[in-house]
């Protein structure tokens, strides 16, 4: 096993997700393949005067079943989702918990907003109910790095442990940094991704005030799209140095080949073409691939007017004539916009797509939106031989992160 950075490759050996269409990879993927969405009326809190009343809430999730430690069970949902997804990913990887060589392992698991529902409850207790104290665990529940701290304790991960924060690119940044650490030789194993649990009354009011949410559904790239829909959950991968994984006989699900990160440095809400395009180009260059090698792009595809046109233009800039041969889709049409967790959930889609030669659909697609003229795999997924896949994450503020995956052996 190469200890320095030279020639080290990065395998994906485990995946875990918690989403509104399935709280583990098996259920999630079955829903993706059948084109089922999990968006509906929000049920977990009273809506009061909200006029945006829909979201992609996680329903079949019991923390007592999915989280192993009492500390996590007592934690905020964003930590519970992360802990559950990490357990699923580690279990699939076949690594023993606690990790035998925890000093050579990293956990990089972020969240866009951390324990927002805990914060809301605490403020309600203080400001409305005039309680004398907040719940004693309030602070720990809120902190954005709590999820990853729980994961490090769950699995005995004693190397670099921290979270990333970059709104909708949070998970992709986490996975990308873990990839770089393994490639660079500082660790051999990493648990990486993100989680989000931001569907609560106060957060919905904030999103509603920004006027970017759809009142009826998430229809990326389509004519009738009228905003995004919030989802929640977690998406986490186990990444492992290739020889380390092979030596212990692990099943290699995919190879993570390239990571590109850039910033537009221009505007908080209006993305530009250059930043996302450069992130895709950097990821392709690191993967040593030509644009023509990519068969499937899991688009950021938020169903906002600004993202979908801009992303289409950026894809065309990078892929040129091959853009028309690409299969593109936004699975947010099914699981909603999981915000910080989106890139982790969608990385799992890219890996599963390659493993099964199946392109997931963009569901709810009536007709192509203005200037949206790629093959977005409308309404029905389809089988296609897939060589390499790309997962795009573009965040508010122009923070871009792109991952490129390949099959296990090449």
């Amino acid at each position, binding site marked *: 096993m190469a200890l320095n950075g030279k020639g080290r490759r990065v395998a994906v050996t485990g995946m875990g997700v918690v989403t509104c269409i399935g709280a583990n990879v098996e259920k999630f993927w079955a829903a993706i393949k059948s084109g089922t969405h999990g968006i509906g009326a929000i049920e977990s809190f009273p809506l009061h005067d909200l006029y945006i009343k829909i979201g992609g809430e996680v329903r079949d999730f019991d923390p007592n079943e999915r989280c192993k430690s009492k500390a996590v069970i007592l934690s905020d949902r964003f930590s519970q989702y992360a802990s559950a997804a990490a357990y699923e990913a580690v279990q699939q990887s076949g690594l023993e918990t606690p990790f035998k060589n925890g000093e050579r392992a990293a956990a990089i698991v972020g969240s866009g907003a951390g324990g927002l529902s805990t914060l809301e409850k605490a403020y309600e207790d203080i400001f409305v109910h005039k309680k004398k104290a907040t719940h004693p665990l309030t602070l720990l529940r809120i902190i954005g790095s709590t999820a990853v701290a729980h994961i490090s304790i769950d699995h005995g991960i004693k190397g670099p442990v921290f979270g990333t924060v970059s709104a909708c690119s949070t998970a992709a940044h986490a996975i990308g940094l873990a990839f770089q650490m393994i490639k660079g030789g500082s660790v051999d194993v990493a648990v990486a991704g993100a989680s989000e649990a931001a569907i609560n009354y106060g957060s919905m009011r904030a999103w509603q005030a920004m*006027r970017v949410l759809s009142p009826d559904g998430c229809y990326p790239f389509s004519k009738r799209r009228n905003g995004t829909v919030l989802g929640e959950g977690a998406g986490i991968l186990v990444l492992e140095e290739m020889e380390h994984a092979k030596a212990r006989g692990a099943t290699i699900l995919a190879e993570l080949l390239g990571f590109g990160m850039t910033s537009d440095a221009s505007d908080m809400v209006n993305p530009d073409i250059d930043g996302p395009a450069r992130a895709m180009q950097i990821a392709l260059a690191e993967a040593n691939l030509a644009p023509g090698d990519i068969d499937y792009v899991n688009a950021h595809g938020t169903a906002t*007017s600004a993202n979908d046109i801009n992303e289409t233009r950026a894809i065309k800039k990078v892929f040129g004539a091959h853009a028309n041969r690409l299969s593109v889709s936004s699975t947010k049409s099914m699981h909603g916009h999981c915000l910080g967790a989106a890139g982790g959930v969608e990385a799992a889609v890219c890996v599963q797509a390659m493993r099964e030669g199946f392109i997931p659909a963009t569901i709810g697609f009536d007709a192509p939106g203005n200037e949206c003229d790629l093959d977005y795999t409308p309404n029905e997924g389809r089988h296609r031989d897939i060589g390499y896949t790309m997962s795009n994450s573009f965040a508010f503020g122009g923070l871009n992160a792109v991952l490129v995956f390949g099959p296990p052996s090449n």
Partner: protein
Amino acid sequence: MDDVAEKIIAILRKNMRNQEKEITLNTKLTDLEIESLDLAVIVFDIEDTFGIQIPYNANEEMVDFATVGSVVERVKAVLAEQNASNAAA
């Protein structure tokens, strides 16, 4: 120019980089360099000032938000609707 229009123009000015620009009812919002996020803030400010709710979605082309005059008309319509429903109640 009436009271509603004056209040709306004051709100627009507050959210403009160049607050000295001349504004008439025919001025297009795009000419005032008002973008989608600015518009969300402006609509919020209008709702707060007049105690009304305006359905506005940044993802849709809104003819009501093309010119200063069309915003004023929209606000007046919402105010009239609200007064009517208050009277009925």
